[in-house]
């Protein structure tokens, strides 16, 4: 199963856009000495990105499976939890509190056991707490890492 031409075209276009903006920045920013090496690299980067774009536009790019609707549908709830957890909750509510919630949320979202099953809930809570105790032991007690505490812990 290969991704559609449109998908490859979009991906290659985005990479080319990044390459061109990196090149533009490298040649316009000061001081010149610090941007010598970026100039060297960004030119190669742009040439390769352009080559890749031409291949994608002419339908030659065939490597990569692309993304199907079904996969995207499966991914987004977990991705949402992941982003909220790592980018916002971990700092705001504290590492341990938000990790417990994120762990349980993802486990619940992707656990095949029906959501109404009481024993399923019990198992998920026990596994979550057990895992977090291991994490606490490893990071807080053994390695002495001070994590942000936020509102909770």
């Amino acid at each position, binding site marked *: 199963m290969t991704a559609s031409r449109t998908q490859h075209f979009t991906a290659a276009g985005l990479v080319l856009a990044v390459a061109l903006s990196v090149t533009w920045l490298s040649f316009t920013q000061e001081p010149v*000495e610090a941007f010598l*090496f970026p100039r*060297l690299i960004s030119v190669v980067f742009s040439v390769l990105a352009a080559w890749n774009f031409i291949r994608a536009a002419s339908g030659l790019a065939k*490597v*990569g499976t692309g993304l199907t609707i079904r996969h995207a549908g*499966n991914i987004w709830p977990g991705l949402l939890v992941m982003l909220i957890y790592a*980018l916002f909750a971990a700092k705001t509510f504290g590492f341990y509190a938000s990790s417990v919630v994120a762990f349980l949320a993802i486990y619940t979202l992707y656990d095949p056991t029906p959501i109404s099953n009481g024993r399923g809930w019990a198992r998920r809570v026990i596994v*979550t707490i057990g895992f977090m105790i291991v*994490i606490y032991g490893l990071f807080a007690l053994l390695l002495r890492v001070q994590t942000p505490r936020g509102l909770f812990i």
Partner: protein
Amino acid sequence: MEFLGYFGGVFEPVSLLLLIGGTIGGLILGATPGLSPTMAVALLIPFTFHLAPAQGLILLGAAYTSTVAGGAVSAILLKIPGAPANIATALDGNEMARQGHGARALHLSFLSSGVGGVIGVLLLIFLTPMLAQWALAFGPSHLFWLAILGVTVIGSLDSKSFVKGLLSGCIGLWLSMIGFDDIYGAQRFIFTDALTGGIHIIAALIGIFAIPQVLEMFSKGRDGRAIQTIAVPDHSLKDSFREILGSGRALTIGTVVGSIVGLIPGVGGQIAGLVAYDQAKKFSPHKDKFGTGHPEGVIAAEAANNAMVGPSLVPLLTLSIPGSPTAAVLLGGLLIHGIFPGTDLFERNPEVAWTFINSMLIGQVLMVVFGIYTAVWAAKIARAPIPIMASAVLVLAVFGSYSVQQSMGDVTIMISLGVAMFFLEKFGFSAAPLVLGLILGPIAEANFNQGTLIAAAQDGPMVYFFTGPLNLLLILLVVLSVGYSFWSNMLHAPGSAKLEPAE
């Protein structure tokens, strides 16, 4: 043969206990994504305050040896390399695990680590004075070409498409330039505050390898049938031994490449595995099998990254120059006890120096034994259902990337790079070349800048970068490497009209 006289020190009860504890602890820390060998050794330094010099070094030596090998466990079972050294192991190791050969891959990885590691330490014992001169021969221009040589490896590494492999490498090189420039202090490509510190290699490594795995697990949905991540059936250890003995070529290439690369200060063990993997592939009659779960890939990569441990200490022990971040931390461990490495270290403190080296030798053997035991446990953990695995890897990734520098910015970078990598991989870009670019970028740039400045004071950049036997040799290798990749790509290009049979 002087070192034989100092084996007694290793087998004293306290030393042996430290050796075993260091090995097991190192294996576990190494297998945890986000805890690199450098960090593990740095974390152990305070413990050595209370120990005698030789004993403290035994602990550090054992931990160094086994964290490097321990990183292979998560690389094979989860496709998440524990440290940069294990990236190449993940390429074939994880494919093997997916095909039900996880236990075999783990056995091979520990056995080849052991073989490479022992040979590396023996090189350290017997050839140190000679090797020290060789390590010094590499000046800025040579290191620049060496980094470029590493970049050209990108084209043939774990990518079905030549141009996309190189492009992934370029993305990595660009990412490596983000943040403050190291010499002039100029701010480059900083769009948000999280990026002012640049992209830390460990945070990037976790994001790029672990997060796509998590998203991949999400994509299976609430599917009862796909519930098991991978099965790891038992594998006869005897068969693994036999297989290792039959893989002389991969083992030799891994050990030789690992020893040479490990020796060069500043390039270090991070790329030893990748370069050895690439060479093993080029010299193998089964090139096409690499990347599809080929045992030779695992053997070459792991032999190399443990073979580098011994030689990487040569510049440290003889010239007091730490050749790698881990060696720098070890230097601290030595200095705290008033031991100055230098040419006369072996005359002034023979007991400490030889006990340390011998402990690494014994440590390699212990590492194989305990590694194989640990592997049994690790395999059990890898059998956890997908939703648990996904949550656990995510939480570990967040904790691991935070604890490197205790920085939320690193967590943001880790997650962003990870999500971006997931989508890039869907379109044929690959993670290994990207990380290689990220590692080699700063090496290439620093030596480019330094070389340019030195050249300006001498006969100009043309003379400085393009003359001298070592420069010419490295340039030749670069040309050969690019030419080879290009040629074999043309031969196997999926779009080419003439479909040449694969070898």
